[in-house]
């Protein structure tokens, strides 16, 4: 476990560009262990790109990522997962040809210790692990009310349900830090409330550090302990929700404009 004095995650002067176009410029902020940190900002502000840097999908041009005290100039996707970073994607990146339960179990992949031969012959160790994984996956599916869809092929489910599967897959491997890209998008109000409650519970009960991107400012202010506002790849504001709400820059650039509605 991390000590409270050390941040779970810290970014220092991280920059990223695509074909010469700056997506993120010299961004720095901290995420304390056990907090829910919300990234907000208009589309194209670089929020998803930032998560992709943390997951090692994108390689930053410059800067440093400090994860639980360790310094990285870039992450590797597998390394990130191994270090306990879970991830939920914006446009469901589920494995559409697989069932709900298989999607969830796949999230446990890095915990598998089996060899091919054990799997092929279904040796006792293989059966044991399969059973363990299946139980764990069911446990998480129940948390999201998904167990009745366990055997359904994911691609056939409605969007809102798929988002829940996405969440379940993100947390099934018991990460210490979860990055969620618009986990509430495409849901109706009651679903949003339901999932927000689950996220809050995960944070509270499992001491899970959560970084999430969300456009619904109401929910963000309610859920987050800490808000970082991005605009055109730069940090506009950083602080507890109350201060953000009152920050004139943010109001001008974001909250006060219509963009919030459009984006949401």
């Amino acid at each position, binding site marked *: 476990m991390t000590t409270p004095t050390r941040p779970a995650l810290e970014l220092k002067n991280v920059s990223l560009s*695509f074909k010469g176009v700056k997506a993120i410029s010299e961004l720095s902020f901290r995420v304390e262990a056990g907090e829910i940190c919300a990234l907000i900002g208009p589309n194209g502000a670089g929020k998803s790109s930032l998560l992709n840097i943390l997951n090692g999908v994108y390689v930053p041009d410059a800067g440093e990522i400090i994860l639980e005290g360790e310094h990285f100039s870039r992450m590797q996707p597998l390394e990130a997962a191994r270090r306990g970073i879970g991830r939920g994607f914006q*446009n469901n990146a589920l494995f559409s040809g697989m069932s709900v339960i298989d999607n969830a179990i796949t999230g446990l992949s890095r915990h598998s210790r089996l060899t091919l031969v054990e799997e092929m012959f279904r040796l006792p160790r293989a059966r044991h692990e399969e059973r363990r994984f299946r139980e764990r996956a069911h446990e998480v599916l129940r948390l999201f009310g998904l167990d009745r869809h366990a055997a359904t092929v994911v691609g056939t489910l409605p969007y809102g349900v798929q988002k829940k599967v996405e969440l379940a897959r993100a947390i099934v491997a018991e990460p210490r830090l979860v990055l969620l890209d618009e986990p509430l998008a495409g849901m109706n109000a009651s679903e949003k409330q339901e999932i927000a409650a689950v996220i809050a519970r995960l944070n509270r009960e499992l001491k899970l550090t959560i970084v999430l991107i969300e456009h619904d400012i109401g929910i963000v202010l309610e859920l987050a302990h800490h808000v970082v506002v991005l605009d055109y790849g730069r940090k506009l504001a950083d602080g507890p929700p109350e201060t953000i709400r009152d920050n004139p820059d943010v109001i001008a650039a974001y909250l006060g404009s219509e963009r919030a509605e459009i984006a949401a």
Partner: protein
Amino acid sequence: MSMFLETLIGGLLAGTMYSMVAIGFVLIYKASGVFNYAQGSILLFAALTFVSLTDQGVPAFGAIALTIALLVLMAITIERLLLRPLTNRSPMTLFMATLGLSYLVEAVAQGTMGSQVRALDLGIDDLPIFLGDIMISQFDLVAAGVALTLGIALSLLFNRTRIGIQLRGVADDTRAALSLGIDINRIWQIVWAVAGIVGLVAGLLWGARQGVQFSLSLVVLKALPVLIIGGFTSIAGAILGGLIVGASESLAETYIGPFLGGGITPWFAYALALVFLFIRPAGLFGERQIERV
């Protein structure tokens, strides 16, 4: 030294023959995202149609016009019956569909026009020309000229005409092009027809060299490494890729081949392409895709 130069120049010139086949692929890939395996069969079909017509006494000019008309018809048919139903399918599905298409086109070509090898005389005498010690093939020089002209003409088409600009729009961003009201189906038909015509030109040159026969369809296997090296989306890349493959294949057969017992050309180009891929995974001129999740 002159041997080396001759091998190099000969290889470069031979490479333009590969480029010409590769350009047909690039056009189609650029506009419709399809790796068209049937390009070789279409090349065979085009050349065979031309030769069959001239054998019937149709003058060359008329035969070309008729063949082009047939290719345009074919492009429209393919777009309507194959591409349109497969819109939004994965590139691999489309690729496999063109494998099926190649069977059909070959069967139609051989079934209707027979399987006899036809001679094709373009009136280019293939006698050696000597530059000092270095021997250069006259035919290859003509072929290289044609390939270059073709490349330039297509570049102009892409950059200077309205259709070309629409076409590039489709290639760059299909959705945006659609929202601008560009008729994407028509663009596909045009591109497949143009690729067919490129196939006809390539087919005539290859056919003059080896006779118009079934094995013309096998030239796709030479075009693939060219595409990999040059990138799937660039005409300049196709030409440069062809030059690289032609030259290195020729040098390798001459200088490495004897140590391995010879006959290494079928796989050498592929090995070369693999090496290129490790250095530049999207080819020399290809653009690296940004992954979005």
